């Protein structure tokens, strides 16, 4: 499949803050591609540059063969954008909103009417199309928001956090719509979310983005496979390099590393440094064990520690999924 999107070292700077630090990736025609990352990771800024809302500071991208820096008008006709916000006019009806956005994309007359009816069908809002959007539920508003992005039948649809604040029923409806658009109409979709389960369900491939950088990019299957059989976090009283090497060599264990220690809190006012130093500075050390087979690895790790009279202070097993991949890659949760 040819690439509909090729991003080449895209950079965006706001003053001194580097929001996007040179991301590169490509999306094939007909693919559903996930862009994963916590809030503030740079997902929306990346999408804003690709849709012409923001001008890149450096780097470029090609959409449908057109350069976003030199052929932006052609690019905009290919793109459809469903912003994270409910970008609608609440006092107008869904139909009036869609008519307006259709006109903005140059649709007129019969074509416009047909497209409005089509997108209303896609989001199942034909019956209530003449009601003011402000009277809709949150989920219905989200659906109109999606319909507005589809009005000109784009080849590449950017869905930026489309399920924020949506009830489960509407969320399922949105998933179905996205899958239908991709399977039945061959629409390429870039789906950003910080809900890993959505990306796992909808996307073929995903890029994990954190602090403006892509830290992993692969198929969902391969990303999850990075964790092998999962991750085990083992609390032990003391850790040294020898212990970590020996644990890494255990059967069913891929890797054992010491997790970053929490930083000691500052001394309380009136408390001397000596007093502070008399207390434990950090919590108990935690070893992160990446397992090939989590059940076998747990047994081996527990036996290994008991043979050395090291008592377990904590034990946590992370099932292999995108959430644990993200935690493994960044040391933080997606929703932090």
């Amino acid at each position, binding site marked *: 499949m040819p690439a509909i999107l090729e991003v080449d070292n895209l950079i965006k700077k706001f003053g001194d803050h580097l929001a996007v630090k040179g991301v590169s990736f490509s999306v094939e025609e007909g693919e559903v591609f996930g862009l994963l990352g916590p809030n503030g990771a740079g997902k929306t800024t990346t999408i804003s540059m690709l849709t012409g809302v923001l001008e890149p500071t450096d780097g470029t991208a090609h959409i449908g063969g057109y350069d976003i820096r030199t052929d932006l008008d052609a690019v905009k006709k290919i793109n459809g954008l469903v912003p994270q916000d409910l970008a609608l006019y609440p006092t107008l009806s869904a139909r009036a909103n869609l008519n307006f956005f259709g006109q*903005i994309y140059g649709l007129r007359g019969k074509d416009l009417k047909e497209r409005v009816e089509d997108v209303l069908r896609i989001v199942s809002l034909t019956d209530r199309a003449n009601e003011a959007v402000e009277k809709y539920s949150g989920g219905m508003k989200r659906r109109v928001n999606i319909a507005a992005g589809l009005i000109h039948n784009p080849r590449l649809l950017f869905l930026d956090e489309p399920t924020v604040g949506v009830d489960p029923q509407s969320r399922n409806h949105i998933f179905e719509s996205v899958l239908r658009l991709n399977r039945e109409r061959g629409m390429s979709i870039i789906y950003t979310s910080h809900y890993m389960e959505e990306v796992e369900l909808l996307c073929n491939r995903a890029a994990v983005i954190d602090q403006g950088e892509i830290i992993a990019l692969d198929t969902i299957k391969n990303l999850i496979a990075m964790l092998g059989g999962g991750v085990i976090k083992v609390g032990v009283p003391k850790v040294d390099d020898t212990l970590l090497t020996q644990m890494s060599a255990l059967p069913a264990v891929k890797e054992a590393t010491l997790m970053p220690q929490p930083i000691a809190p500052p001394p309380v006012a009136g408390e001397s440094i000596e007093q502070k130093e008399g207390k434990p500075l950090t919590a108990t050390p935690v070893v992160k064990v990446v397992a090939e087979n989590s059940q076998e690895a747990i047994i081996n790790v527990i036996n290994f520690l008991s043979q050395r009279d090291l008592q377990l202070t904590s034990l946590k097993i992370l099932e292999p999924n995108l959430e644990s991949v993200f935690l493994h890659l960044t040391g933080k949760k997606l929703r932090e």
Partner: protein
Amino acid sequence: MKALSIAYKDLQIFFKDRGSVIVLVLLPLLFVVVMSGALGSIGQSQEKDSRTSLPAVNLDNGAMAQALLDGIDKAGGVRVEPYTETDAATALDEASVPFVLTIPQGFSADVEAGRPTALHFVVHQDADRTKAEAVRLVIEGVTRDLSLQIQLLAALEQMGQMQAGSPEAAEAFSVERMQAQATSQFKSASLQPLVDVVQKVPEQEAEREENEGLTLADVAVPGVAVLFVFMTAQNTARSIFDEKEVGSFRRLLAAPMSKAALLIGKMLPNFITGLVQLVVIFAFGIFGLKALGLTPITMGKSPLAVVLVSVLLSICSSAFGILLAALARTPNQIGGLSSLLLWLMGLLGGAFVPLFLLERFLGPVPKIVPHYWANHALTNLMVRGLGLADVTLDLLVLLGFTVVFFAIGLWRFDFD
């Protein structure tokens, strides 16, 4: 075309908000009524008597001068109002009086001595000429009677003295002779009146104040119209801010249309609303004020020029809306900036106090706001009856303000 779609959508949203419609259409009319009524009553406060007021400066203060003034006051139709020389000159300069009668010093002595003398009747060039002529005729009538009376009395006195001096000449003053003398005096009084009325219309001065001749009520409609058309600027700013807040502005930026088309689309509703406001306010000024018994306005001698000023005024207001949107970062800032700037500019631009009064107190300061030039142009066209050529400077300055507002707005506008 896309700009028109944005404008149509914004107008749809605007007309769904009935509160805004009321503020933009009914409030100006209320202002017009209040201002016209209030200012009109100020202008008419000195004319409660139905007789025409005649400001009179009596520099003589003699018996004959007083007799003349009493005669004019009792002649009917004219009410004499005593003025000092300075007050009369000021009032005439300000066009708050249309004419002034001045009785020169030594008037009584001259009349009593039978020496010809003259009254000065100075008429403002913008005064109602028919009314001035009527008053002048009354003055002339009274002075003619007074002249005749004085001359007859003088002749009779002279004849009496002559008879007393030579009783033998009694037959010389027969009835026939007396009648012939009286007829001669009538002719003399008619052809060579003892008291002449010299009328003077001051020639136009090079730097004459242009506001002379206006009543305060005349300027209410243009002032209020300009104020409220500029008030719509805050709607443009608020609409842009709302688009940014809900995220639809981002969606519009992602659509295949230029930023210029986007901004023009956001300006158009302001422009259209401004024109609608002007039509409503002017129509009310012409027909509504008349129906309410207040002084109506007219479209003047050049309605096309009024249309031209109205269009440019609405464009200027729209450009100011873009400037407000560029400068304000929050809804509160839009409200604060709008309130501060628009009301202050309206005040300086003559929305509440007529320009000729403002300029007297503030000098050229009002000229720093576009309101002044728009108000000045509309007043010249609709109240003074001037033509397009007379408002060229106003139009050029208004155009200049428009370009500056739009340029700064575009420069400072945050599309991100």
